[in-house]
């Protein structure tokens, strides 16, 4: 297994990062990764410095990224991605499994159509966060934008800040949920601010009632 670090170079255009998943990069050399095409006229070497270390787990770390870096972790099925910096739109969209941590802010549609796994955003999330999400856990420690959980079917949005009220999300009251202890225990293994959460008391909302309505937003209470 290897730990792959991709340090972003300054860019004047958006960068589609969907090809840079742990499962896709495992076993590849620096030269092989650097030559991967991200667009017709753009390869990894044009926008990232690449380094590879052997590690016990398949992991990819993005450094110095900005809102220009879109589709990070798109469709990821295993391993871990850490983003130290901001991320663009569609962060962790269609996530199938694994853990994706973003220390900065995320753009719009973070976790869009996510099916499994954990997407943890330590900064703010843009509009349509968790849109059409099918399952999994999406945490945001910062603020969330408009249309939170739009069309969300199942899964959990774990928030540190109360979002704006929405007509299609129903307030189910404040509760102490035992499963959160197990979830927080799994956070403790991660190098993330999420490891510091301990309150089992949450405000629970169910939605999106415009669709299936089996999803939940849990707002951590002090």
């Amino acid at each position: 297994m290897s730990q792959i670090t991709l340090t972003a170079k300054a860019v004047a255009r958006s960068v589609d990062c969907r090809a840079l998943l742990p499962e896709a990069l495992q076993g590849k050399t620096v030269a092989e990764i650097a030559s991967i095409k991200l667009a017709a006229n753009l390869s990894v070497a044009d926008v990232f410095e690449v380094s590879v270390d052997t590690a016990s787990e398949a992991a990819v770390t993005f450094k110095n990224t900005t809102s220009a870096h879109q589709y990070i972790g798109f469709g990821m099925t295993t391993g871990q991605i850490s983003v130290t910096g901001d991320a663009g739109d569609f962060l962790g969209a269609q996530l199938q499994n694994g853990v994706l941590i973003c220390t900065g802010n995320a753009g719009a549609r973070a976790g869009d159509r996510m099916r499994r796994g954990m997407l943890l955003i330590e900064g703010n999330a843009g509009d349509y966060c968790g849109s059409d999400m099918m399952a999994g856990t999406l945490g945001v420690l910062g603020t969330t934008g408009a249309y939170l959980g739009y069309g969300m079917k199942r899964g959990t949005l774990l928030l540190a800040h109360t979002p704006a009220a929405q007509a299609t999300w129903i307030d189910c009251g404040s509760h102490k949920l035992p499963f959160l202890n197990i979830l927080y225990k799994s956070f403790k293994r991660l190098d993330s601010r999420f490891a510091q959460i301990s309150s089992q008391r949450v405000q629970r909302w169910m939605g999106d009632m415009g669709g299936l309505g089996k999803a939940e937003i849990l707002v951590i209470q002090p």
Partner: protein
Amino acid sequence: MVINGVEIDDTFAEAFNMRGTRILITAQNLRWAYNAANAMTGFATSVIGCGVEAGIERELSEDETPDGRPGLSVLMFAMGSKVLMQQLETRMGQCILTCPTAAAFAGIESEDIISLGKNLRFFGDGYQVSKQIPDANGKLKRYWRIPVMDGEFLTEETTGMVRAIGGGNFLVLGASQAQVLTACEAAIDAMRKLPNVIMPFPGGVVRSGSKVGSKYPKMFASTNDAFCPTLKGVVKSELDSRVESVMEIVVNGLTFEDIAVSMKAGIEAACGLGKDNGILRISAGNYGGKLGQHHFKLRPILSGEVSA
């Protein structure tokens, strides 16, 4: 062989292959963990009438449980996997789901997986929530959150099932009922300190040992008359004139070694009271060695030989 004046018979306990599982039960506090575990392991003394043999293995601290609450580990044994699965599901539904604040988790890893809360989730009537969360080793585990009147019932989806052994036993023979009971209590206290075993009978002790067959054609087992003190002289008795009471401790465990170690601890504790306190003999129950796959020979076990 004599320990503290107590004679150890040159005989063996005959035990059987079983299927076993372990479940971790947690609750808001130990009182409610015990309420759940006592219900789950109630009416589980013998597979003959109860389907399973079950008991509380030990208490668990907050650090040892998946959800960080106090809890208990429960071992459950059955003659076959089908019965074990059926009984586990029924007991989960009637004893753990129903008990305020209780939650249940897998307590043993195995290639054989059986459902714990897998089918119980349908009690949630569509409002049940599945969560897959990695454990300390990064292995994904599936939990079910089922809305109930006290909040949420949390259970892991599955637990492991292992090959185990049931029916390790020894008999305590003494001069009076009270003295034999005291010796058995001492034995149980010592055995409960050991892992991977349970003593399924009330308080760990059984007074109605049985033999195979009966004078009544419909009965396949009946009282072990050779060890009944009130029948001395009438039947071919195993008891001499001094013995007035006999009690048996049955032990089920995950491995042969677990049972052998616990039998040794139990017998030594019972013998601790000695001949002066009316403890006269230690024997064991068997069927001539033809029925059970495992023979626990008392004297070698007490000499420290624990392997099969």
